[in-house]
């Protein structure tokens, strides 16, 4: 048998430590509440509605990213222009800004003493303390993940395929629909999942813009603050289970099909 190098043992131990670091707290939390408690929690209307709100707002944010982010990702993947790096950095900004700052920034333009806030108010759109506000925040934090995933997906498709399609008579729009989209849809789905995942986990920015209506992370925090660890855990478990199921389904859809000869 080949003698393992010390480096092998070092990497193995580090790997085990990292996995334990991630899995131990999660496993502890998932197994802490009893089945009865989990069942009890499900009867709580606030829990159900907060989880539902979390999922619908996250899906809406991903949907908005899909509609407005896809064309932008396409342009960034396919064209070279002055200032492109600047635009890419701007798109990445929400990833690095501390979460409460995002909330404060959004409120500062949505407030009545800002012209944009005034227009929104005239149109009857309320950001503060509303699902619209939550969706706005989640889109803000989730969009970069969507755009980056789709952009790299489109970059991986040879522009020559689009060129040939154009030379065969297909206009740009038709080329996108018949060539680019069918080849990039997995990346689009992956971007959608990433955006959703980021949106569902958001707490800091949402809590500033909309404490009510409560999304699941805010509810979990409130339970923890008001009643302690024991009462926040079952809600967290349900949120995790619902999210895992959702992402698992989407992931399976995004997996490459087995090649058939």
């Amino acid at each position: 048998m080949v003698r393992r190098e010390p480096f092998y043992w070092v990497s193995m131990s580090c790997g085990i430590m990292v996995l334990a670091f991630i899995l131990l707290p999660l496993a502890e939390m998932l197994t802490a509440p009893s089945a009865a408690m989990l069942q009890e929690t499900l009867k709580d209307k606030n829990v159900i509605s907060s989880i539902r709100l979390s999922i619908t707002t996250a899906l809406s944010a991903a949907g908005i990213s899909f509609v407005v982010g896809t064309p932008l990702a396409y342009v960034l993947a396919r064209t070279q222009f002055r200032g492109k790096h600047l635009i890419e950095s701007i798109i990445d900004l929400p990833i690095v800004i501390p979460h409460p700052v995002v909330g404060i920034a959004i409120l500062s333009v949505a407030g009545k003493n800002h012209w944009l806030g005034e227009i929104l108010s005239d149109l009857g759109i309320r950001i503060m303390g509303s699902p619209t506000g939550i969706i706005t925040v989640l889109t803000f934090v989730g969009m970069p993940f969507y755009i980056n995933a789709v952009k790299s997906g489109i970059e991986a498709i040879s522009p020559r395929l689009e060129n040939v399609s154009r030379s065969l008579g297909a206009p740009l729009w038709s080329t996108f629909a018949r060539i680019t989209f069918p080849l990039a849809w997995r990346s689009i789905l992956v971007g959608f999942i990433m955006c959703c995942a980021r949106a569902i986990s958001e707490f800091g920015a949402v809590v500033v813009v909309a404490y009510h209506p409560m999304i699941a992370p805010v509810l979990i925090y409130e339970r923890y603050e008001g009643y302690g660890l024991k009462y926040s855990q079952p809600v967290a478990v349900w949120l995790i289970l619902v999210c895992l199921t959702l992402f698992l389904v989407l992931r399976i859809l995004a997996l490459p099909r087995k090649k058939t000869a």
Partner: protein
Amino acid sequence: MIKIEGLNVHLGEFRLKNIDLSLDEGDFFVLMGPTGAGKTVLLEAIAGLVPVLGGSISIGGRDVTRLPPEQRGVGIMYQDYALFPHLTVSQNIKFGLRYHKHDRESAGKRFQKFVDDLGIGLLLQRRPETLSGGELQRVALARALMVEPRVILLDEPLSALDQGFREEIRLLLKQIHRSSHITFFMVTHDFSEALTLADKASIMNNGAIVQTGSVKDIFQKPSSSFVADFVGMKNIFPADFDGDTATVGSLTIQLPRPRNKESGHIAVRPEDIVVSLKPLRSSIRNSFAGTIRGIIDQGFLYEIHINVENRVFKSLVTKGSAVDLGLDIGTDVQISFKSTAVHIF
């Protein structure tokens, strides 16, 4: 058919400079040049796939410089074939039909004809990823021809193929060209492809066209040392001219006719230089004594490097003659070439 005037393209670091080119309908035109010369960019400019900075391109008398690619009637086939990986062979071939007015019956017949001619009947339901290089090539060709373009642009169509396939596809291209009115515009860096396929050719270097003419003319009368080198002239020397002789160092070389200019280059193809052990008794005017300095195996032939008065001449000799003559490094030999074999530029 295609008329390009003063075309300028800037694409990142890359530039096409003042390209002028004119092709007749039904020409088989070849664009040659080393890697990085700008051949593919010129193709893409004709197809409308890269932005043009200045100049104009017209096809069939219509200025297409500002037209989008789909309105130009120009088909393009890339070196890597660029078949749509998510579509079957049949769907690939029919991809462009819906954008062109066609009646179902004649399109069906045309489809069947290409499928038969190109021998791809058994591949129709397969995906590109399962096809071989030669099969991909045929499918890409059928797809481009299916929409009946006026011009077809081929970007090094043969370079990715095995030698055997290459011959086959070369014949096929020639047949298709003969049986259609389509103007063929092919990029290659292989001069032998040009010789067998094209009537007319241009040589490109550094984003500019350096010579245009019949393939034969380019081969026989290269206009610069770059073209001479590119088309395989290996013996290129700077020379001073005086009447019908050229002086290369201490050698005096007879020229086919008197020259007006004082200095320039002369070139002799290696296959035009005869190697013998003794001076030949013939009318050949240029004959010099030298010593073999190197022998390079080129398959059927040897390339012999002969040192004559500190200048190295290269000659091609069949392996049989090399053995008969007993050629080896250090052998003293005589090299001879006709004055008509000397090219001047």
